[in-house]
């Protein structure tokens, strides 16, 4: 399972304050909070692609790597999962770190040459074109896993997951068929940093992951609220009758 890295949202549950050094500056931060959050709270910007404050970090993108320890015994770790500890010496922009980040961005640029976000981030790191080979110039998915984690951790239905290993790894529904667990909420598409999850809505029907979802209209204004399945999911979680969700938030 995922190690629960504390986030700013759960500040009050954190351990006692400890001292550590980031880029030569001594700072105080709660123990066990992720290094990424500690660094960002103190004004050290670290780029990320697969981090989201509401989701457990799994360290896929490897952009948030930092160097810890003192020369020559240093180590590259990903800051989104590494806990803040007393006496830690952290470099967020050492040459090794920047080199790793540039390479990661160059690899991602080769994977998804048309992804706007990757182009911008790469350019910010001085990478304008990739020396690596592109398989599919139309590819947009960077396999950050935010959609999968959102579906599992926030929505709580696990309708999609990663499929396969390196050569054909992709985000998919079970057996690439219509998922009966999907409630059509679209959270996966919402959280996707490269907007790659296809999603259409017309005439009261939302289509996502190859499945059509009938949308519920608001009993008051008639605007569509959400797929019926999603409202049923809410009703199940809250224990309220499903009809209580048939009014949109503007008319409530």
């Amino acid at each position: 399972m995922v190690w629960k890295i504390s986030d700013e949202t759960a500040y009050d549950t954190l351990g006692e304050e400890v001292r550590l050094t980031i880029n030569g500056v001594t700072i105080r931060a709660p123990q066990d909070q992720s290094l990424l959050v500690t660094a960002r709270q103190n004004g050290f910007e670290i780029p990320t692609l697969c981090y989201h404050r509401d989701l457990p970090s799994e360290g896929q993108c490897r952009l948030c790597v930092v160097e810890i320890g003192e020369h020559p015994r240093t180590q590259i770790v990903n800051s989104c999962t590494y806990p803040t500890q007393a006496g830690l010496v952290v470099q967020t922009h050492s040459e090794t770190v920047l080199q790793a980040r540039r390479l990661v961005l160059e690899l991602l640029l080769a994977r998804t040459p048309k992804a706007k976000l990757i182009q911008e981030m790469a350019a910010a790191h001085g990478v304008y074109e990739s020396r690596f080979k592109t398989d599919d110039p139309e590819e947009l998915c960077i396999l950050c896993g935010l959609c999968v984690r959102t579906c599992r951790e926030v929505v709580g239905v696990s309708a999609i997951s990663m499929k396969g290993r390196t050569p054909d790894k992709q985000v998919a529904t079970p057996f690439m068929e219509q998922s009966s667990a999907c409630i059509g909420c679209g959270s996966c598409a919402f959280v996707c940093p490269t907007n790659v999850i296809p999603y259409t809505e017309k005439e009261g029907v939302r289509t996502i992951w190859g499945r059509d979802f009938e949308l519920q209209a608001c009993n008051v204004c008639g605007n569509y609220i959400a797929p019926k399945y999603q409202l049923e999911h809410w009703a199940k979680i809250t224990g309220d009758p499903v009809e209580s969700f048939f009014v949109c938030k503007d008319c409530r």
Partner: protein
Amino acid sequence: MPRFESIDHLREYRRQLIAKRDPNQPQVLVCAGPGCLPMGSEEVAAAFREELEKNGLAAKVLLKECGCHGLCAGAVRVLIRPQEITYQHVTPEDVAEIVEQTLKEGQVVDRLIYEDLHTQEKAAHKGEIPFFQGQMPIVLRKLDIIDPTSLDDYLALGGYRALRKALLEMKPDDIIDAVDQSGLRGRGGGGFPTGRKWRICQDALEDPKFIICNGDEGDPGAFMDRAVMEGDPHAVLEGMIIGARAIGASKGYIYVRHEYPLAVSRLQLAIDQARESGFLGKNILRSGFDFDIKISRGAGAFVCGEETALIHSMEGFIGEPRPRPPYPVQAGLFEKPTVINNVETWANVPEIINLGAAWYAGIGTEKSKGTKVFSLVGAVNQTGLVEVPMGTTLRQIVYELGGGIHYNREFKAVQTGGPSGGCIPAQFLDLPVDYDSLQSVGSIMGSGGMIVMDTSSCMVDVARYFINFLYQESCGKCTPCREGLKQILFILDEIIHGRGTEEQLALMEELCAAMASASICGLGKSAVNPVLSTMKYFREEYLAHIRDKKCHALVCRPLLKYTVDPETCTGCLACVRECPAGAISGKKKMAQEIDQELCVKCGLCYEACQFEAVKIE
């Protein structure tokens, strides 16, 4: 089997067991290890059974199918005790002669014994064969003597004596002290001190704690753990129970590959036997300690040998590693403190408890103690399973145990530590094999695979083979490993096809450095070893592929050029008939010519020519 209610009961049972057994009873021990089984050891054993029956010896001679005898090149192997005569390449047809000559007359069957390839000297007894002389079996000690399905066999050789000692004479701290002082390091490849790992887990406050045995051996050409699980399953169990006692775990799991069905069934049988006899379950040997073991089968992913991926797989999730910390000793299986050790590590534990930490620490080098099992495969004359003290040199392993390079070829490199190990060239043959020395030359100990290569191997092709394996097996979770391996494979393919450039070599080096530092788990971090080591020690081969478009080992087909020597060609047209591309033309009884544009470089013409007129360059 009785259920052992007390120490005295076990001691008495063992005493009677040994008293019942005649040390001079003739025994026929047929190897049923991973090497011999597919060569027909079951048929050989059946032939022995029949022949002994026919000769009225069935009651007198003890016939057993054992674990791996070690020297797999001589499959099927048979050991005759008490004389310790070993026969190799035994077929069911030889059985009648062995029974007649050896068991009845006490004579050695000359044609079935070991013969030294270089000196032609013959050796009938196990102790006279150089392959066995250089070894120091601890983990493999019992493999060729005991019947893996018999708990009595294990008990008769002192089995579960260490457990008795650990449960009743030692405190958990004493056990950990012993393992710590023995200097035992993880045999799965990481080399983390086992005692320290146990101590951290023992100190963890959370309950329950778990014990895991990692039997997900997936390296190509490696079968050390398989041989131990199939040949001596009780040793693994005993080690785990002792470990559980030390850290205070009540539940253990053995994670075995589904592709090792025999290991799964032998372990299951051993668990059932141990449970029936009171070595597992509630109140083990009346000591008040409860512990049980369950088998968890892996579904065939190489990456699940990585400890965090293995734990995910056992929990029912996708077998992907996660960043550490937290380490499994802090938050492992079901987020509880978990000690996870490799099969070989566990099998070492009972011996350390039995014979003492000082004894174990006396074997090996300063920082690497004890012995290590290697599966010696590839271009050596005598392939098989060897167990040598740490610090034995590569030269001793390859030349003394392995009997040198086959077909009288020259040694080129040895790859240690599985697919992500480095290729070590001849200049380091005198390197002592231990964790730190191997690392210093760009390779790893790994779990003990050892693939020897001769001059017929092209190192670019070797690197490509292992990178392709790792690319197929990488879980694809983190960017550097997933995308990096794909790009390295692409560059190596370009080089093999003669399209590579020197810039690409530099790019590959840059990429390797980033992968080694930024990947999540050991797979990505060490995946660069085969590339970096071959680029470092065999750079001229890469350059030959890139600059001259030549593969001097004649392995990379796209770079080969087939031509017909007009002087030698008789015009028999044998090659023309074989060529699938219609690339060979010429008149009958006249010299033929190969159209290089049409040639697909399949090599069929080369094989078809009886006059050696087809040349490769």
